[in-house]
Each structure stands twice: as C-alpha cells, then as structure tokens.
C-alpha cells in the first residue's frame, strides 16, 4: 500500500510560522534580555538557528545559540537500536537565563523531559520555555509548548516529517499517512 503524503507547510509557511514565533518570544519576554536559544539535535538545532536569525532581524542583536543532545537523558536506552550520541555545545552559562528550548515536532513529550533534565544539569536557568514548529498531540507527560508553529491533530500511526535543505533551512512539513 502506498503512503499518502500531505504537505502541511511549504517553505513560505515555515518562514511565516518562525517569524511569528520570534515576535511572540520577544513580546512575551519583553525583548532579548537574558534570553538564550537551545535547539534539540538535530531538527530543533536547525530551527533554533533560524529563530536566532529572525530575532536578529527584528532586534538588531544576536541571542546566544546552543545545541543539546538528549540521548544520555532518554528513558528508553534499553530499547533503542540506534545508540549514536551527538555532541552538546552550549558555550555560555545557563544560570539565571531565560531558555527557549526549540524542537521541530512535539509528540509524547519524552524528548522535552529529557532535554529539561539535560539543561538543568548544566546550570539553573531562570525559566525554560518551549518553542515547537509542529505540535502533533498524543502527550504522555504533562508538557505543553509556549510557542507553536502549527497545531496538527494526528493519529498515532501517522508520521510528521520536517524537510531541511543543504543549508539546514526548513523547507516544508509533511504528514505521512500509513
């Protein structure tokens, strides 16, 4: 049986969503004071870089950008077949910072729980907020995003795929029905 692929956001749609999220982050935090972006490897890291760019365009100043790999904090070490661990690169202090955690798709919430654990081990931030390109539902933990590109109710056996180009810029979001 062939899979049905539906385009949810095209390149312009992704750009508009990120622009709006950037404005929302700045509005909610009243500017870029103590603000840092941390992207979750790999999709979230790419999106965080795009958000950093958007915020620079609006404010004329760059916010610090870090990348976090949450593999070491996952709760499914024993059932994973892929054990690759990526590098965490956060070249600034997190203490008393307002962290915007960025990921591409929010699903069960387990990755975000792991990411919050990883961030807390690196320092005590003032707050952690969550920015997501697509929220597809099916939460298994009490986690909710603060900034959402697109709300997309899905069934469990569907997949969401965010496509990035060679420059790691998000090009499209697809829903894959099995």
């Amino acid at each position: 049986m062939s899979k049905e692929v539906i385009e949810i956001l095209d390149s312009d749609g992704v750009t508009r969503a990120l622009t709006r999220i950037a404005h929302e982050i700045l509005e909610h935090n009243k500017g870029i004071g103590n603000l840092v972006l941390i992207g979750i490897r790999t999709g979230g890291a790419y999106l965080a870089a795009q958000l950093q760019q958007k915020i620079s365009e609006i404010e004329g100043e760059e916010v610090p950008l870090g990348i976090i790999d949450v593999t070491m904090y996952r709760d499914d070490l024993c059932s994973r077949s892929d054990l690759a661990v990526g590098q965490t690169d956060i070249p600034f202090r997190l203490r008393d910072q307002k962290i915007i955690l960025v990921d591409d798709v929010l699903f069960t919430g387990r990755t975000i729980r792991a990411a919050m654990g990883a961030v807390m081990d690196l320092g005590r931030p003032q707050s952690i907020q969550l920015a997501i390109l697509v929220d597809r539902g099916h939460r298994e933990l009490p986690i909710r995003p603060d900034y959402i590109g697109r709300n997309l109710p899905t069934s469990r056996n569907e997949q969401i795929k965010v496509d990035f180009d060679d420059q790691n810029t998000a090009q499209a979001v697809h829903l894959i029905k099995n």
Partner: protein
Amino acid sequence: MSFNPKHVLGIKDLSAEEITFILDTADSFKEINTRQIKKVPTLRGKTVVNLFFEASTRTRTSFEIAGKRLSADTVNISASSSSVVKGETLEDTAQNIEAMHPDIIVMRHSASGACDYLAERLNCSVINAGDGTHEHPSQALLDAFTIRQHKGKIAGLTVVIAGDVAHSRVVRSNIYCLNKLGAKVKIAGPRTMIPPGLEQLGCEVYTNLEEAITDADCIMMLRIQRERQGKTLIPSLREYARFFGLNEQKLKLAKPDAIVMHPGPMNRGVEIASSVADGQQNVILDQVENGVAVRMALLYLVAGGEKLQDNC
C-alpha cells in the same frame, strides 16, 4: 551506523566503522568531564563490577569514574582482598558475582583469554580491561582517540610503538586498532623483547629506535615491565635507556609536530627521559583524560540497546 555489542573483549574483532563509532561516542561524552556537575543519568540502575586480578590504578580508577559519571553503581574487587587468595577458581568467583546481578563486569586478569572465557560462561556483559599479554582494548581506543584529537585523523600517519613488546597487551590491541584505521605501525625494541612473527599482525619491526622514529607522526613508548621478568631480557636498565630510551636528541628525528605517548606508569630515565615526558610534544595526560571518555562510551554501548531488555 550504530554499534551495540554485548561484550568488548578485544580490538581484533571490531571493524574500522565500529572503532570510529566508539571514538565518536567518546567525543560526545568527553564534554561531561569538564562540567561543573559531572554526571548524567544514562546508566542509572546499572551495576558495574570492576574485577581486577592484577594491580592497576589508572585503568581501574578510569573505569570507576566513567561508570560513576554515567550514574551506574560501581563496585571494585581486587585480587588481594578477594577470595582468590583463598583458592577460589576464576569461574566460581565470577559466578558468585553474577549471582548478585551486575550488568557489566570489567575484568583485568594475568591470563590471556580470561575475559573470553568468562564472556562465554556468564549472562552479563564483560569488558576486557587487560588480559595477560593478549589485549587491552580500552587503552588502544583511548590512544587512537588521543591521536585523532591531536592529528585530526589516523589514516596515513606513521605510529612507532617502542619498548617491551613481548610483555605488552597494549601493543597487540594498538596494532589491530591503528591498522584498521589506516595508520602505518612500526615496532621497535631489543630483539629479546620482540616476539617472533610479530610482522604478521601488520607492522614493520625495527631493532634500532632511531631508524624507526625517523619521520614518525606519533611515538608510543612502552613501559619496561620489571615485574614481568623484563630484566632477564636486557643486560641492564642503563643500557636499555641508552639504546631504547626516548630522549630529546632521538625525538628530533621524528616529524617536528610528532606527539609522544605513554600508557603509563612511566619509568622516567629508562624508556622515556624526563625532558621528553614533560616536554611540549607529550600528550600523556591527554591520554589519561581521554581514557575516562572512551570508557564511558564502552560502558554506554555495552549497556544500551535491546540485548539487555529483559533486565530493564
């Protein structure tokens, strides 16, 4: 790719891709060792037993710290304080430990093949921390990691390993490891300390240190193992130091950016002059530092994945 071994018994059976995957994993773990809070919850609830039948400070401490930084519970057993001195066999000792349900046994033993023997008989994972004169995989991996860190690559480099080759498990693991990663390996030492047929492992053998280290990228000096009858193989330590000890003068024959390594513990003034051991080109303490990251990677890869799912 991913790599999910039940045991790590030697380098011989690993592929170049698997070795690179271990080194990349270690690269990701390395950052934890410089954090203010040096701990991640990855191996929470796992028990690691360090079973050391031979004296070791560096390797045992390194494995212990690696386990603790991954939140595993680590227990150390050394031969002098164990029931081995009361006459228990290796298999009985291991079975008694296994009855307490550890997840990983890290073992050092004086008999070559002891780790393979245990791995066949136990359900838990076994990591070889040095067996006789056979293999010492974690040392070879941390050496490769250190070379890669300083040279950016391993393929195409010329690496000299010099000293008491016959008694060194580090040499065997390193020849396998460096060959698989594409380096050229030269072995140097007194003829009495070079086992016959060593060339078959894939290396060039020299009995003249100067000749071997000319234009080398990396020089690894081995310890004269006095406790393993090293002294009957050479006339005197003084003579050894003169011909096979690495001093500044001999080091000048290597490439100007060559690095000097030593698995420790060093006999200063014997196989390595103090001026070299403390010199600009030495990376000896980097080896020790990287050892923790490499052992974290090994514990993680052995403990992770689906093979232990029943225990989760």
